[in-house]
Structure formats: structure tokens, C-alpha cells
């Protein structure tokens, strides 16, 4: 059985501080719930039965281990380093999000909670939450910014089929951060029977550490698969997209102490990082520390600390903050944080589909796009692992729009004309 609870020098202290980042900046009414969650998380860490149960669910319910696939055509096309894809999109529900959802659902059950609530951006986390809620017979409410609610209709539809109530959030920028606020507010009101199943490695302690631990399985599998399937001791580079940072921290975590493995997080450059509101790249230009949504980290914010609008072609990266451990990893220069723009993401999406027959989520295509720039500069003896955090089925409308696909447009038009 794998131990997912690793220790690294970048871990949070007892109060959830990753040095100066993280912490628990919440109103008093949430403190008892967070203390309770922290307690059961620490107990679960020490309980082999918990890990065993989680591993069984990973294997039998989610389909882990997900493959580590050598993308030979893609690598040869780029002409440089060998590229391996960690196929998290082959998980049940289509993305890595199921990992921390299963972990948190087990914790919620341990705490005697009967209702799960979650925020979601792309809808992948909401979908995974609705899925585990259905599986464990719990009630479920998912909050989604109205902008995302509209552009990710397929996921909303599936969540509803799974029995979840999906509420579009009308306030603020109507995106992920506003969905977080709405979910926190629901939690404040219903803290007795409800667990807030937070969808990334951020928020108040213990979420950043807990979500990281449940995602660490990704990096652990990569380690084993590289060795057993390809005879590679360790990768030279690992690349992952970073919104809140859950998939990235999961694949990075087992390699944090090994300085020989270059770790790269890729942020959403949107339409370009020159203009506020056009991107979600928090760590590129004069990053600014703030305290928002219960944790201290870098946020896109103005002089007064007002959180700024963001944009990304991928709803899952369209977020103004970044998990606190990433803030520390950036400060310590352990992880490099770069960005790619929407246009490059679509190019990456197309190329990967054509060369490997893999339709990847637009979020994950950020990592692919960066690898396309990096791989040709490296020798063929070097190995790059990309965390392909999700599959792209959900993005059909956005990709069709971005490619200005005429037949698709016609199809939509005809569909809407059909009589009921």
C-alpha cells in the first residue's frame, strides 16, 4: 500500500502556515468546523484503514492507477525530449479531481456529515463531488459562477443527473472565486451536517495540505510507472497546469525534495498578461500577497486589495488566487511558474489530438503548450512528464467556438430549432 502522507521541507506547520503563506483566516463561526476537520484529517493520516479504504476506491471505483503513456509521435514531432503523459483524464469522471473528492468524502463520513457542498470552475470538481455524493448517499449542492455555469452546461447537466443541486452564483465576477465565497457562506449557515468539499489545494487550513495529500497518489504512481514500465529512475522535468494548484501539487509532491527534477507550473495567460482582467497569471508580474477566502497567498488584486477579474479559455484556471504551498514553492524557487496564452492552448489541444489521439482538457493543454516550447530545446535523452489532469470532452463547445467550426454552429442552430 502506498503512503500518500509524505513529509517535505515545504510542508505547513501545525497551524497550516507554509512559512508566511496559508493559515486560517476565517470568521469565528467556521473555526469549530475547520478544527473538527483538521482533527479527523490528522486521525485519518494515522489510520492505515483509512488509506486502505481510499486505495481500494482509487483502484476499483476510479480506475487507478491511471496510465503513464509515452507520447512517441508527439515527442518525435517536437524533436527533443521524450514526453510522457500522466493520463489523469482516464479517471472516473474524467479528471484528477476525483482523487481528493474520494478522500474528503471518506473524511466527511468519518465526521458523520450527511451533505456535501462544493464550488466548481470548469465543473470537473463539481462533477466529481456530485459523483461521490451519489455513491455515498449524501446530499449535494454545487456552486458555480454564472459565467462558468453557462459555458460548462454539459457538466451542469451531468451534475444534476447525479442528483446534485447546482446553483449559479450571480454575485461578484460570477466566476470560481465567487463560487468559493458562496460555498463558504452555505457552510457558515449549515455547518452542522455539511462538509465543504473544497476543490483545490487552497482555502483555510487544513485544506491545502489535505487536498495535496489526496492528490499525491499521482506523483507516486508516476515514480513507480517510470521505473517499472520504462526503466527511468526519475524524470528530468515535470510540467503541470496551475489554477488553484491541486493537480500540480499532487504530481510535484513526491519530487519536491529531489532538486534534480525540474518542476514547472503553467498559469493561464489568457489573452495576454499585459492587461488586468485578461488573464489568470498570478506569479508573473510583481505578484502581490493577500488574504482572501481564508488563506494567505498571491492574488491578482489592486492597490486596495480588491480581487481583480480574471480570464482564461479554461474555466478551471480562471481564478485570481493560487494555493499557499505554491506561493512558498515560488518564493523558494523550487518550482518555476510560467504561462501560456489561450491561442497556444488551442494549438496544443489540436496537436495532441492529431498526434496521439488524445483529447485533453483545456486546463491540461496549458501544460502541453508549455512542453511544446520546452521539449525542442532539450536532448532526446531527457524525459518530460506532463500531468494531463483531465480529458477534454467537456470543452466541446469552447473548442468548437475557438476553432470557429461552421458545421458545429449549424448543428447547434438546428438543435435549437428542433420542436419538442
Amino acid at each position, binding site marked *: 500500500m502506498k503512503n500518500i502522507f509524505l513529509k517535505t521541507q515545504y510542508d505547513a506547520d501545525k497551524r497550516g502556515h507554509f512559512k508566511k503563506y496559508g493559515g486560517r483566516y476565517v470568521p469565528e*463561526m467556521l473555526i469549530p468546523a475547520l478544527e473538527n476537520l483538521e482533527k479527523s484529517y490528522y486521525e485519518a493520516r494515522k489510520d492505515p484503514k483509512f488509506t486502505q479504504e481510499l486505495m481500494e476506491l482509487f483502484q476499483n471505483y476510479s480506475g487507478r492507477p491511471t496510465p503513464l503513456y509515452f507520447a512517441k509521435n508527439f515527442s518525435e514531432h517536437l524533436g527533443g525530449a521524450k514526453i510522457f503523459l500522466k493520463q489523469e483524464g482516464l479517471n472516473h469522471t474524467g479528471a484528477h479531481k476525483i482523487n481528493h473528492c474520494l478522500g474528503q468524502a471518506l473524511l466527511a463520513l468519518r465526521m458523520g456529515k450527511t451533505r456535501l457542498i462544493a464550488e466548481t470552475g470548469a465543473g470537473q470538481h463539481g462533477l466529481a463531488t456530485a459523483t461521490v455524493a451519489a455513491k455515498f448517499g449524501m446530499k449535494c449542492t454545487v456552486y458555480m459562477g454564472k459565467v462558468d455555469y453557462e459555458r460548462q452546461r454539459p457538466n451542469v447537466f451531468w451534475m444534476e443527473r447525479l442528483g446534485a443541486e447546482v446553483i449559479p452564483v450571480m454575485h461578484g465576477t460570477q466566476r470560481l472565486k465567487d463560487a468559493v465565497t458562496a460555498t463558504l457562506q452555505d457552510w457558515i449557515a449549515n455547518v452542522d451536517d455539511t462538509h465543504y468539499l473544497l476543490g483545490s489545494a487552497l482555502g483555510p487550513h487544513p485544506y491545502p495540505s489535505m487536498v495535496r495529500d489526496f492528490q499525491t497518489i499521482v506523483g507516486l504512481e508516476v515514480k513507480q510507472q517510470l521505473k517499472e514500465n520504462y526503466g527511468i529512475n526519475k524524470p528530468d522535468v515535470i510540467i503541470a497546469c496551475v489554477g488553484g494548484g491541486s493537480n500540480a501539487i499532487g504530481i510535484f509532491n513526491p519530487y519536491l525534495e529531489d532538486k534534480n527534477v525540474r518542476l514547472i507550473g503553467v498559469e493561464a495567460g489568457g489573452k495576454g498578461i499585459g492587461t488586468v482582467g485578461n488573464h489568470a497569471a498570478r506569479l508573473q508580474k510583481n505578484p502581490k500577497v493577500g488574504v482572501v477566502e481564508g488563506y494567505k497567498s498571491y492574488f491578482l488584486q489592486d492597490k486596495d486589495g480588491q480581487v481583480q477579474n480574471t480570464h482564461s479559455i479554461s474555466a478551471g484556471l480562471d481564478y485570481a488566487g493560487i494555493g499557499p504551498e505554491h506561493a512558498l514553492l515560488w518564493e523558494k524557487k523550487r518550482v518555476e511558474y510560467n504561462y501560456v496564452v489561450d491561442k497556444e492552448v488551442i494549438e496544443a489541444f489540436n496537436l495532441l489530438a492529431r498526434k496521439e489521439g488524445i483529447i485533453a482538457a483545456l486546463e491540461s493543454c496549458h501544460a502541453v503548450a508549455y512542453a511544446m516550447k520546452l521539449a525542442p530545446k532539450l536532448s532526446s535523452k531527457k524525459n518530460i512528464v506532463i500531468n494531463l489532469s483531465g480529458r477534454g470532452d467537456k470543452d466541446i463547445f469552447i473548442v468548437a467556438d475557438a476553432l470557429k467550426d461552421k458545421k458545429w454552429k449549424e448543428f447547434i442552430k438546428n438543435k435549437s430549432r428542433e420542436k419538442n
Partner: protein
Amino acid sequence: MVSIQQQLQKIKKENRLGIMTHIVVGYPSLKESEKIIQTMADAGVDFIELQIPFSDPMADGPTIMQANRHALQNKTKVKDAFGLMKKMSGKISIPLLFMGYFNTIFNYGVERFCREAMECGCSGLIFPDIPLEEEAKEHFLKFAKKYNLSNIRVLSPASTPERIKKNAEVADGFLYFVGRKGTTGAKTKLDEALNCNLEKIKKYVKIPVAVGFGISETKHIKSLIGKAEVAVIGSAVLDRYAKAGIGKELEGVKKFLKLLINSASYKKPTR
């Protein structure tokens, strides 16, 4: 200007429940905020919270959230809040407090914020998202104290005896008790467990207690008499303001507040 302590003593002497009201700086406009504060003071409230608008006000319900958003769309800045505080504290005698979220203070610089708040005539700070555990890093309590600002601690029905004790140790002025679980917003029915929770709080808290969240009717005020020292009326005033006819907003607010204030006396009204 009278201090929070003096105002609390006055309330006690007058044998009544104190009233604290709330505005969002810049909602519906800075000029109007000024007039609303003046109207509240004229109506006879005891304290007024000036909320500094924030983009992600996690403890606020729809009414106040909307007001925050509106104020930010009006381009209300933190310095506008200081300006308003300075102007109004010079005009009216009751204590004015800043309410808001910690990111505002953090960005401004904790010491600088506290110093300038004091210089503008602010009496106290209500910032619900900075718990005691972060004090070692932020020195929020330390600087509030240094600049003579009452640090109003906020507790809720979910607070355990341990949390109540911890907060009671550093609470200053009065303690703000969230009367029910959930965010701010006028509700017709106050939490039924309120009485029991207030007793729990009173066991550990020796300073006056203000109860907020959900107070919108005279019967709510009456139900608090003898159990708490101050009633907080937040979104109900905003709702009243929004519902009043154009040009009659301030009059509507005044009428509403007078009604509530009149019901706050311990003495039974003569028939």
C-alpha cells in the same frame, strides 16, 4: 466625541438596549453614505459601523454583498472610507467603527491602517476574518491596542466554550455575537436557540454583548432586552433604504430606526 466605553455607560444609565447600525461606504454613493450616517445619528443610534467595501465579503449576505459590489463599481477606495470617517467623526458625537475584511488592512499595512483609523476618529474595528491564531503573524490586536481602537471580537452560535474564553480574553469595548448561523441579512425569525446561546456567551464574556444578524423588527429588539446590551441592525436598514420611494430614502430610514429605538427601552411603554 464620546468613546465606546462612555456610550455603553450612557446606554446602561438610560436603562435601554443600545443600537448599532451599519452602512457600506460608497453605497449608494459617498455623498449619500454621509447623509445616511447623519440620519442614523439624528435618529439616535449609539454606534455606526462603516463597512469598507471589499470584493469578496465572505461573511455578508446578499443585501450587503450587493452594496459592496455597488460601492466598488462606484470606484470607492479605502482612502474614501478614511475620508468619510474623518468627516463624520468631526460632525457627530457617537462612536464610529470600521467594519471590513482583513485583506484591506493587510494591504494597507496593519500599523498604518490602525494609526490612520485613529487619526480619523475611528473608535473600533470589526474585522471578522482575522482569528486570534493569526495574531503572531499579523499583530492586529497589538496595533489596534496601540492606537486605542477597540478590537471587537465576533463570536457565533458555533463557538465552543474554549473559543469563547479565548476571545473573551482579548475582547475590548463590546463583543459582537452573531445571533444565528449564516451570513448577514434580515430574517423574520430570529434563531430560536439565541437565548440559550447568549447565556453560553454571557457565562464567559464580562463586557457588553452586541447581537447582530437578522434584526429587522421591533419584536426582535424587544426579545433582546435584558439579555444583551446592544442590538445591531445591518441589512434591514439597507433594505428599508432600497424600498423607500425615490427622494424619501432618508426619511424612511429615520422612521424605521426611530421605531426600533423606541422599542429598545427597558421601561414598558405607557399606553
